[in-house]
């Protein structure tokens, strides 16, 4: 059953035109495939993270439920989906009008260029469409064998830990990993079965094989096992909690495989979470540039302005990544065109001179291409956010005022804004949590450490999460954190959740 179909006729001609413009501007992208589909299909795709096939799980049903309702009741509409693959697939909504299709296509070329060139995406698997489909097949088979409820329950537990990722893993290449693995293998003198891990198989498959190797080892005499268990849970600190569990948790092969699958998918999506502002900013910059300079017919100008403004709305409650992204890109372009940076500019005492500053440098375009290549949202904001920009964009921070019981504007100070924004972006908005000890108190308990940067964890959620972690680790689990300014270790021992004293 084909829910999407390739574009033909006028749309295909439009694609060729837009692609030509994009190339002329120097965008560098993977082959682009556009397909059209109806709103139900685009809701399905969006619910599945852009992919036509995923593993069976109610959470996709939940997202689908919300998207469909949002569409049916006129709350929201998705114009387009694009995914990071090679060739790059993008889906257009059939019901879009002509101007929408133009905007969307131009926007997609921006994303495609970003996927291909931004360094944080360099390690992502561009054949993810197939990988996701394979993951689906595998999990379906596990469901046939071990029961749908058992598998789904286990997936729920793993999803609970899905946000505990280490961004450095993104640059872990297979060859680096292999070398380390081999060294490790020699040191721990594990069974020689690991020798066959030498090709480009997916991380999930490897984790699977690794556990298999470990499982064989379990049959070895008991004494040896006792000995190796100590070596097995080294005091290595890692933020890659899922990876750690695959290695060291006492789980079945299929369970390790499922963790591997979810981990691989989580890392695949990670760069997108780390570059939301830049990615949307870049794509919006290009749809705006291509449309206003080339593709737009004068009769379409009002429709375009309306759509563009809709995407760029400013909200008092949240930062709109599209808006901040495009404005920062334009600001950088402007500053580098006029040489408004560096020692001379920064130390210039006259406001008047600064405003009129123009060295006719003309390196704006070049600079933003460079920026899109090497930055992520954090470094992007850290390096290019300026006081002028904050003022022009009317940025502010707000906080909860317990006295009035409402959220109020707190500050419009540059440093405060920057700190807040960076704080929100740090570790893609998630608390930083690392495995500190796999043999805590010498009792094979697991100790996680929350690296506290001023914001407490939600204790109820922490409680429930530890319960799920316990189900995987099968020994008491502990979380070291700071709560209301006090160091505390929360413990879940299988029965109750309590602070250790």
């Amino acid at each position, binding site marked *: 059953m084909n829910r999407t179909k390739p574009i033909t006729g006028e749309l295909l001609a439009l694609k060729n035109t837009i692609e030509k413009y994009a190339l002329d501007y120097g965008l560098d992208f993977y082959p682009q495939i556009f397909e059209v589909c109806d709103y139900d299909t685009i809701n*399905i795709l969006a619910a599945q993270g*852009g992919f036509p096939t995923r593993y069976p*799980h*109610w*959470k996709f*049903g*939940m997202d*689908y*439920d919300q998207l469909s*309702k949002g569409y049916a*009741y006129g*709350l*929201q509409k*998705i*114009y*387009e*989906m694009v*995914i990071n693959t090679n060739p790059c697939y993008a889906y257009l909504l059939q019901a879009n009008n002509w101007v929408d299709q133009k905007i969307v296509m131009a926007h997609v070329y921006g994303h495609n260029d970003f996927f291909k060139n931004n360094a944080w995406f360099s390690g992502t698997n561009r054949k993810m469409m197939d990988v996701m489909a394979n993951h689906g097949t595998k999990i379906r088979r596990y469901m046939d064998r071990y029961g749908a*409820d058992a598998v*789904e*329950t286990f997936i729920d537990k793993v999803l*609970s830990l*899905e946000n*505990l990722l280490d961004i450095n893993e993104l640059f872990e290449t297979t060859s680096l990993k292999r070398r380390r693995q081999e060294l490790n293998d020699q040191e721990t003198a594990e069974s020689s079965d690991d020798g066959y891990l030498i090709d480009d198989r997916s991380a999930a498959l490897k984790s699977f094989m690794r556990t298999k190797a470990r499982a064989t080892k379990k049959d070895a005499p008991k004494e040896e096992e006792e000995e190796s268990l100590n070596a097995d849970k080294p005091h290595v600190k890692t933020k890659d909690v899922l990876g750690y569990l695959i290695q060291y948790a006492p789980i079945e092969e299929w369970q390790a495989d499922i963790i591997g699958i979810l981990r691989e998918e989580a890392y695949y999506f990670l760069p*997108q*979470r780390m570059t*939301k502002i830049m990615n*949307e900013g870049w794509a919006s910059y290009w749809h705006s540039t291509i449309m206003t300079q080339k593709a737009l017919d004068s009769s379409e100008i009002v429709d375009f302005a309306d759509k563009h403004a*809709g*995407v760029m*709305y400013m909200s*008092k*409650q*949240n*930062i709109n990544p599209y808006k901040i992204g495009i404005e920062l890109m334009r600001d950088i372009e402007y500053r580098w065109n006029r040489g408004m940076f560096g020692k001379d500019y920064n130390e210039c005492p006259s406001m008047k001179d600064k405003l009129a500053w123009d060295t006719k440098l003309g390196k704006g375009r070049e600079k933003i291409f460079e920026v899109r290549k090497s930055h992520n949202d954090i470094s992007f904001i850290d390096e290019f956010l300026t006081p002028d920009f904050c003022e022009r964009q009317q*940025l*502010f*921070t*707000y*906080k909860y005022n317990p006295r*009035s019981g409402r959220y*109020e*504007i707190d*500050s419009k100070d540059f440093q405060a804004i920057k700190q*807040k924004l960076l704080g*929100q972006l740090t570790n*893609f*908005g*998630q608390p930083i949590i690392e495995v500190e000890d796999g043999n805590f108190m010498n009792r094979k308990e697991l100790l996680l450490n*929350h690296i506290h940067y001023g*914001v*407490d*964890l*939600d*204790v109820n*959620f*922490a409680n*429930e*999460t530890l*319960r799920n972690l316990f189900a995987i680790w099968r020994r008491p689990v502990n979380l070291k954190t700071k709560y209301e300014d006090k160091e505390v270790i929360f413990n879940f021992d299988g029965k109750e959740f309590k602070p250790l004293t």
Partner: protein
Amino acid sequence: MDHPIKRDHARFRKIVKGRIRDNLRKYVSHGSQIIPKGNDKFTVPMPSIDIPRFKFGDKSQGGMGQGQGEAGDPVDGQQDPNGQPGQGESGEGEGNKELDVELSLDELARILGEELELPNIEPKGKESLKSVVNRYTNIGTTGPDSLRHLRRTYKQALKRQIATEAYDPENPSVVPIRRDFRYRASDTKVEMQNAAVVIYMMDVSGSMGDEQKEIVRTESFWINLWLKSQYKDIAIRYIIHDATAKEVDEHTFFRTRESGGTLISSAFNLCKEIIEKDYNPNEWNIYPFHFSDGDNWSADDTKLCLDLLDDFILPVSNNFCYGQVESRYGSGQFYKDLTAKYGAGNEKITMSKIKNKEGILDSIKEFLGKGK
């Protein structure tokens, strides 16, 4: 074959309803249910399941925004805890443009019906209430342009052209002139309707606090909404009682707070009088609702109530509904007495316990889920 996501979807709906995967039930949140906000604006219910994760406690966190204002100015609306930049893992989707929806009460009732899977009510009795309606089923030669019937107009023009031999099949152009114009016209019809009356009874004795009344108020809003969508004309009567009962208007119903004892039979008696006087059970669909915290003065009075139900109220009603609102002072005894007498499966009587505000939707479903 349907897309596999429909299975995921069905599974999600079952989990939300608590039919499968009981271990997930505690993570289900019913999202923002539909709440009336001035000028008929509503939010749509979005049940969801929150998978627990390590995450920041939010209130202390605050956020960032963009727009005019000085320090100390309120940030309008509530912070959306999921809306921080960098969250959400889907691919890049452009333009999730949020719109304010304005829903009519009819649409709202439809959404309620869909969400709670409420069956349409099958009215009892014959259609007895006359009502006059205008329907545009006729065609006339005069009328406003906005009602012009294009097809009929062109048909007429074609007829005329053929009759006057002005029509040329080689060059089939049909041009209507003034007297060809046809307009939609209304016909007046008398339709027979089912009539319904809702009689709300509420215990306003000392043990019913503001919170309990708020629950009753919200619940009756939704019940009225649904019944109004099912019956064209609906009468609503309100009775409050402590040890004595009296009929009041809507405003008083929700605002009165009495003290003192509780004799539920007083309300039932008044209800009986109202029905006898104004609503012939053969012509009306009757829906008595009674809300209390379950306290009654004495077992004798409870006995009296049960007799009243048996002898009069149950035989004449479509569905007698008893909603027990949990309160700190109430004993909840009346619910037990009703259950002991009628059991859970009685056709004519529906009982529901309402723990708190979150329980309202469930209880509405219990009341209206029978389709009567």
